């Protein structure tokens, strides 16, 4: 009787193990056949978004390969190192794209791309990822609203630093009905990125490319670093 129970248990375990192998194989095969395409998608997405926040045709280097990583918890919104891409024209600095985090999002951190020209003017801001409320906070996405384009051409003097805020806080930027927190988080993150850039401009352009850490939006196994 006992032997019978044991045999039945073993058979059950065997079948279960068989299916675990089947599942793992299925996932492994799919992974194998999609990994390259997914990495290419991620890279294409990165290139496209980098191009979105940089002035078209004003640079001639491979921006996605010319990056360094920096850390500044107070101004960049995270203790983790963030990536700064450098755009150059004939080796002269044109702009950087910073990837700060807006920690004060309504449902968690909002990851941004902030393009800043060498003179400290914003060339473009885009949201990389967020968890804001659909229909309210997701208007920070450029596909849904023009709001994020309002940063273009601004700098720390334009508007003056104390007016880098949403209207409710006596600033110049619109907030969304029902999602003031989201707008506020993005505005302060962009302002802080500008402040960081202003203090570290020369070091950012001068540092040798290819830092130890990988660029953030790329998967960890990607190329682009030594």
């Amino acid at each position: 009787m006992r032997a019978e129970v044991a045999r039945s248990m073993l058979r059950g375990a065997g079948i279960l193990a068989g299916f675990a192998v089947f599942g793992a194989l299925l996932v492994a095969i799919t992974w194998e056949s999609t990994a390259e395409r997914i990495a290419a998608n991620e890279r294409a997405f990165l290139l496209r978004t980098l191009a979105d926040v940089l002035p078209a045709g004003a640079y001639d280097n491979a921006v996605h390969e010319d990056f360094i990583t920096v850390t500044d918890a107070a101004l960049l919104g995270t203790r983790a190192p963030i990536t700064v891409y450098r755009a150059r024209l004939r080796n002269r600095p044109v702009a950087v794209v910073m990837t700060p985090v807006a920690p004060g999002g309504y449902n968690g951190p909002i990851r941004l791309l902030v393009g800043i020209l060498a003179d400290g003017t914003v060339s473009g801001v885009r949201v990389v990822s967020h968890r804001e409320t659909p229909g309210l906070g997701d208007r920070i996405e450029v596909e849904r609203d023009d709001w994020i384009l309002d940063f273009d051409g601004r700098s720390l003097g334009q508007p003056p630093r104390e007016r880098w805020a949403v209207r409710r806080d006596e600033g110049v930027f619109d907030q969304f009905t029902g999602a003031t927190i989201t707008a506020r988080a993005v505005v302060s993150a962009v302002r802080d990125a500008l402040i960081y850039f202003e203090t570290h401009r020369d070091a950012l352009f001068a540092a040798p490319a290819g830092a130890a850490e990988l660029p953030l939006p790329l998967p960890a196994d990607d190329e682009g670093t030594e």
Partner: protein
Amino acid sequence: MSGRVAEVIKTGLWTNNAGLVQLLGLCPLLAVSTSFINGLGLGLATTLVLVASNLTVSVIREFVRPEIRIPVFVLVIASFVTAVELAMNAWFHELFRILGIFIPLIVTNCAIIGRAEAFASRQPPGLAALDGLAMGTGFTGVLVTLGAARELIGQGTLFAGAHMMFGEGARAIELQLLDGGFLLALLPPGAFLGLGLMVAAKNLVDARLQRRRSAAPAASADAAGEPA
């Protein structure tokens, strides 16, 4: 056999609709139905998983013993969901970015394990796959209807984001029908209200059909005498 086929299709699409009658999979249903295209994307992914898991469960039903069937179902479903997730990431990258967490969460859609347990584990593979297709299509129908309604009322557009699924050419069908919209429709309450209204509408139609059916035999009882 053809009677069974028709019944399976009708059950999945209408009489036992996953969204409107079983009220299964409400979490993704309510969260993702903010636009037609989002609904369609999640609906198709769910349908794909349903067909694959129903088919597999039916094929293996003979030698998977009852005491281990649930873990086996979970393994099978989780594997297919992961495969679908990877495939969407590879071929519908933009849509994948929007649907995000709700693709892996298909695993937790009770409609899928429910069909595996209640139907596929007792039926031949063909019928089980058909059941998955019908159930998935019924679920997709609810998703796109609710999605279209919420999108139209909430932001005045229809088929926004179609290019993410059908390529750049599909931008032509992205319509801006109203100027602005009624925000509530896009918020969670809008999802509940919309689904509630859809359930009510279905019950209304059913009640009307029922009345007509019970009125009809009385009128034609002596004429035909056809079995019900």
